[in-house]
Structures are given as structure tokens and as C-alpha cells.
């Protein structure tokens, strides 16, 4: 099982006491705000969790795996996530795998 937006919203309804509708909006807007910030080219730093950074990748040679044809992979911006120290140690100490 994976954690999804629906489950997070349900938890906000139970734990924070938001209405079901507000809980759903909250989760939606939370992820949308992070997307918008990254879209503007800004980093997002969530202490205790980790940072979402942007990296510029220059063009590199690639290939269509189906046809074998050479096509360059264009220059692009990508999002990377760097987990914070606290999250890293919690995951390392977890035994759920």
C-alpha cells in the first residue's frame, strides 16, 4: 500500500478537525503551492523533511529505445529531492522493509 492524497485528507479530517472538503482542498493546495514555487524556479525547503531543488541539465545524446534512432535529449530543468538529515535517519532506523 502506498500513501495517497485521499489518506492524507482523511487524516486531516480526523486529527486536525478540518471538514472533509477543507481537508481535501488543503492537501491539493499544499502540493500545488510546491509545484508553483518550483515552476517559478525557486527551491522549496521543508525543515525536518527535505529540500526540493532545481537542476539545469544540458543537452545530451540519447536514443529512441524502440527504433534505435539517435535523438538528442534537449536541455531541461529537473526537480531533485534531497532528504533532510532527520528524514534520512528516521528511514534508516525504520524496519518496515
Amino acid at each position, binding site marked *: 500500500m502506498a500513501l495517497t492524497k485521499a489518506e*492524507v485528507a482523511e487524516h486531516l479530517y480526523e486529527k486536525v478537525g478540518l471538514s472533509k472538503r477543507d481537508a481535501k482542498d488543503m492537501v491539493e493546495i*499544499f502540493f500545488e503551492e*510546491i509545484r508553483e514555487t518550483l515552476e517559478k524556479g525557486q527551491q522549496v525547503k*521543508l525543515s525536518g523533511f527535505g529540500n526540493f531543488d532545481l537542476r539545469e541539465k544540458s543537452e545530451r545524446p540519447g536514443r529512441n529505445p524502440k527504433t534505435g534512432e539517435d535523438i538528442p535529449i534537449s536541455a531541461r530543468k529537473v526537480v531533485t*529531492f534531497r532528504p533532510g538529515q532527520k528524514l534520512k535517519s528516521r528511514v534508516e532506523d525504520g*524496519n518496515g522493509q
Partner: protein
Amino acid sequence: MTKSELIEKLAEKLIHIPAKDVESAIKEILEMMAQSLSKGERIEIRGFGSFSLHYRAPRTGRNPKTGEAVELSGKYVPHFKPGKELRERVNASLA
């Protein structure tokens, strides 16, 4: 943008929700995500991305100060894979 700035932003957008509830909600969301990963459970947020764990094999490391060899056991590290919408929106500014 930091966590406190994110809280302020969301409080502005959700004016009918008390600011302190917005703050607790955001903290709960992050705590739930961290907990999920520490239990070895994936996170899947459509349009945003997914978080999973990647295994790092045991290896012999070195204490950078003393140069002494140390055995490091295998471990799991969090990994994020951006979703399609996020990838496209971030990249659109270049296109």
C-alpha cells in the same frame, strides 16, 4: 520557500480556515509522509510525484579524519521521482 513561508501562503489562500489549523495541517502532512517512508511505505501523489526507498548496499567506508576503515551496513534512503505534470511545468519555462 521555507516551511513557514508555505504556511503563510496557504493561510492566505484558505482564508476561511484558522491560520493555526493551516499550520497544524501542514505539519501533519509532512509528519505523515515521513512516517510512511520510515515504515517502508511508498507515497504516490498524482501530478506531483512519488517517494520510495532505495537500498544502499553495505560498504567499507573511511573515517575522513583518521583514515580508519569502518564497515557501513546496508541502508534505505528516500528517493523522489517527479510526476509528469511537475516535470512538464518545471520544464515549460525553458521551452
